[in-house]
């Protein structure tokens, strides 16, 4: 991979992009409904753009089990909102976190740029929607679990091999149905179909995903594998999240799906600069 595209933008292979989570849900684990109201969600978008987000990822259904949200309800939560973001921020890359093709079609009609298939191909028609609208697709590893179920005693001989087989297979199938090759990302999906040991190994061996040549998205933010590693509840996992972010970025991941944008932006800029891929913001020390 030399470069990849999202929305109107083309990014170099060594880019490190912030994807800000915008929940249109009353019950997601981290913000617990803070952006459930439309005005609060709009404020969230304004804030994350100010803080340097490259992408917003809009979701209408929390990942954890709970009350069933049908496609109509999901669309009522996200479709018009995507239209508002598109109008307000023409350059911003808009991602929508959905596994349903019919929701994907509706949000693409409103201007979404990327379909974040966080449940790993649960609806096999979703890639065709990405192809139809010329948008991007995130291909995700879940170990084959049903959407909105927790992992229960999942085991793999080699979790990274399972991830690679799944996400590369999804990516190639997406290309086969017409999704642009340079608009596809792969995501190992920490905590999805994985215990903490699995997510730690996926982090440690992230270079193997980067080595496939597909741009890599990681979703680490405040997750249970961070919480279990440091024995910290939700709300006290930022430091651990940022440590995992630094490691992942050093190993070459391109997109970071996060709650805390400003902190993540700083970590990614620091890593990019250490890597020699971004100049320091200012250099006068010892140079007066």
């Amino acid at each position, binding site marked *: 991979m030399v470069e990849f595209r999202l929305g109107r933008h083309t990014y170099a292979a060594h880019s490190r992009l912030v994807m800000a989570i915008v929940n249109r849900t009353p019950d997601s684990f981290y913000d617990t409904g803070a952006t459930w109201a439309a005005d609060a969600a709009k404020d969230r978008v304004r804030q994350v753009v100010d803080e340097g987000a490259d992408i917003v990822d809009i979701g209408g259904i929390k990942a954890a089990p709970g009350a069933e949200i049908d496609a109509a309800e999901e669309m009522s939560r996200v479709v018009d909102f995507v239209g508002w973001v598109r109008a307000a921020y023409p350059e911003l890359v808009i991602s929508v976190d959905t596994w349903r093709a019919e929701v994907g079609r509706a949000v693409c009609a409103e201007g979404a740029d990327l379909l974040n298939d966080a449940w790993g191909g649960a609806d096999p028609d979703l890639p065709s929607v990405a192809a139809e609208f010329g948008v991007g697709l995130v291909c995700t590893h879940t170990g084959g679990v049903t959407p909105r179920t927790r992992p*229960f005693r999942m*085991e793999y001989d080699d979790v990274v091999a399972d991830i690679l087989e799944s996400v590369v297979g999804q990516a190639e199938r997406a290309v086969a149905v017409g999704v642009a090759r340079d608009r596809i990302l792969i995501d190992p999906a920490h905590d999805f179909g994985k215990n903490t*040991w699995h997510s730690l190994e996926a982090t440690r061996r992230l270079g193997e995903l980067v080595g496939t040549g597909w741009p890599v998205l990681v979703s680490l933010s405040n997750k249970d594998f961070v919480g279990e590693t440091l024995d910290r509840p939700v709300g006290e996992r930022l430091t651990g999240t940022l440590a995992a972010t630094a490691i992942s970025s050093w190993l070459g991941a391109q997109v970071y799906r996060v709650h805390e944008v400003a902190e993540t932006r700083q970590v990614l800029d620091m890593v990019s600069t250490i890597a020699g891929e971004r100049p320091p913001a200012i250099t006068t020390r010892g140079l007066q």
Partner: protein
Amino acid sequence: MGVRMAGVGMTGPVTEGAEPSSGVIAALVVPSPPMQLPEYVGAADPAAAIRERSAAALADLLARHPKAQVVVVSGRERGARHTKGSVGERVGRLLLAQVGWAGSVRSVDLPFDACPDEIEAAVAAVAGVPASATVLLIPADLSAKRTEKAPGHLDVRAAAVDDGVLAALASGDDAALRALDPALCADLWLTGWAALQVLARCLPQPGSARVVWSGDPYGVLYVLARWGR
């Protein structure tokens, strides 16, 4: 093995009347969460008490039947994505190692959602060495859908089904175990269903039955139960 328990282990035979010389003479149902396996234990060992309670019960049972062969009966996922063997078998062998069992051990596994033929095959496999007295070690759990934070989230039907299984284990009611609805048990992530079917068929109408302990600290109901012929 990272865990070793003082006071638990084989301390020599303790006879309890005349020991039957053949067939299944006793069974122990034990909790089977993978978190008690050494490969999954981190800095803390949250299932230590569960594992130690199981080991103590196993040591006591085997002390009464020192010449028996042990058969570990466990469920496994159909179409597993790994070759590690069933968690239940690994839990069973861990417990046997922990109590220092040097006798014969065989393993019989069957899918969590075994069909009748697969259950009968497992029963036949248990009876494979009929000349020997056999103790069944059955790592098997009840529903994983007992609370909103449970692995399978809350299913309000779980409590009643679990209560029925506990009552059957406490009273030696093999007919009640056989009568469990397999589809409902699958819905409830009651992964012990298939292994308990083997228990019901291999040790029907037990002379003694007791639930030693049960609990659901993670939203999965674990049970430690003992049957004797």
